[in-house]
């Protein structure tokens, strides 16, 4: 958000069209919150669709969720919650100008992101292997399915569950990746010592985004994993 390059490290000069750094900070914060609104509305569309279809085909969602591994899901939930904490610490240390601690906190957050995506990759590849793909691409292997969930009648439109599963976790995953990129960006800027008590808007903004990603997952986890 800053349009003026800092001449001395740690001393942020506000952009020419603002009165003061505080003025710029408040404006940026408002913009960030508005952006969060748009994110929530975008995911909101998916959640509305989920509610509608879950209402129409409760059985499909119940059976579909048998294919998810609650252990993986729960681990990921913990990982993301922990990363939200480290993110918050990162912001805190940036404000305190405790550069080293801030970088460590941010690095841990990124690592959590990697852990999350790694577990997602395990889950995805398992589903790909079994042919549990969305919509038209669904090619469930009957033997593997029986081995996994036992003798359960598979609803004819089970592919719909996987459409939701991949759309929701996929869109969320893209957000995690974007978030990791953004955290890397603010981490590099932290290393350069650009942030301090008077200027930490980018870290705070990225943090807000990361908390949102976390929040969305907290809804996705029960909807997709625990629904049975």
């Amino acid at each position: 958000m800053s349009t003026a390059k800092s001449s001395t490290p740690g001393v942020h000069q506000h952009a020419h069209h603002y009165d003061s750094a505080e003025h710029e900070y408040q404006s940026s914060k408002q913009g960030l919150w508005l952006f969060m609104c748009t994110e929530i509305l975008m995911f909101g569309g998916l959640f509305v669709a989920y509610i509608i279809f879950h209402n129409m085909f409760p059985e499909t969602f119940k059976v579909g969720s048998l294919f998810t591994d609650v252990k993986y899901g729960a681990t990921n939930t913990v990982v993301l919650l922990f990363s939200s904490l480290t993110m918050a610490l990162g912001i805190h240390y940036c404000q305190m100008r405790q550069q080293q601690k801030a970088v460590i906190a941010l690095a841990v957050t990124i690592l959590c992101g990697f852990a999350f995506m790694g577990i997602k990759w395990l889950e995805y590849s398992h589903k790909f292997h079994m042919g549990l793909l969305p919509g038209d691409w669904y090619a469930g292997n009957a033997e593997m399915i029986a081995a996994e969930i036992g003798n359960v009648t598979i609803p004819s439109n089970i592919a719909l569950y996987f459409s939701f599963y991949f759309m929701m976790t996929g869109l969320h995953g893209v957000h995690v990746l974007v978030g990791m990129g953004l955290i890397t960006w603010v981490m590099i800027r932290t290393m350069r010592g650009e942030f301090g008590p008077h200027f930490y808007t980018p870290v705070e903004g990225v943090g807000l985004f990361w908390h949102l990603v976390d929040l969305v997952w907290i809804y996705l986890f029960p909807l997709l994993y625990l629904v049975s």
Partner: protein
Amino acid sequence: MNLNRGRFFAGPRVATLAAFMSTIIASMFSVVAGASTFMPPSATALAAEVDHIYAFLLIASLISFILLIGGMFWFVYKYQRRSANDKTAYITHDHTLEFVWSFVPFVIFMFVFFWGWKVYHDMRTVPADALEVQVMAKKWDWRFTYKSGKEVTSGLDDNGQKIPATLVVPSGRPVKLVMASEKINAASTDPRDRPVLHSFFIPSARVKQDVVPGRYTMLWFNFDQPGEYWVFCTEFCGAGHSAMKAKIKAVPQADFDRWLAEEGGGVLTLAEQGKALYGAKACVGCHSADGTRVVGPTFKGSWGAQHKMEGGATVAVDENYIRESILNPNAKIVAGYPAGVMPAYAGQLSDDELLALIEFIKTLK
């Protein structure tokens, strides 16, 4: 800015403007004066009702338009700029005036809203004694099936030109259409051949209803007089959209009965076809036709009844409920019956077969 230039043009320009605008308004007037000819001749009692609202709206709009835009012209004429130093009034608001011009439109809008609601309610309420015809829409044609099993499709004339399918109905009797959308070719797996939205529009009856893949939609009308009326498809469905026409021919009841009887012989009625499917598709194994309880609920007496579901909801047994229960049986489970027993028939029954089964269930009073 050279204000003199504005002044030089002002006189003649306002005159031209006024003359020109009044020409436009006059021509719109003349068109509106013949308002009844604006719409195609109304052929049903409901169409006449719609036309009454329409006429009211036209007149009310015209009056508001003249008040508003007439006022605009009057002010523009009267308060043209005379010089760069003109003094103008300083009027910021007037609560009474603002209240009036907010409240009066509100009252008018509410009036037409309720009027529109009333007529719309009649449109949606199908008379009980209506003659039922099944309508099948596909890219880009209409097909009509009567309960007797008689089917009407489009044809070709000697020059290879399409003759639209003609739905023959008795005049003076309500007709209910149960409409579905089907694939171009039942065997095709090409996604472009999947059923799409269409819309059944009879301008002379002022009724229209989308035809939606995967469910039934209904429409009804009652032509006062014998006559021929156009049917258009009004939901864009591809290159043949504008060619997707049909005709409705209303004839006296006696002629209709005669027409229905001729060439109809030999075919099974829809209900008979449904009965055959009831056996062939193994429905009979779990659903009795005589009221005894087997695995699933009996078909007897189910049509039009209110079924209590697991979870406490009550569902009226109609075309869409039966369709859903066949294609996706676990969506709604009747209270006291097991879930997950019946296999889903999605993809195993054609739209025609579904309608035949529904027809059969309707006969089991």
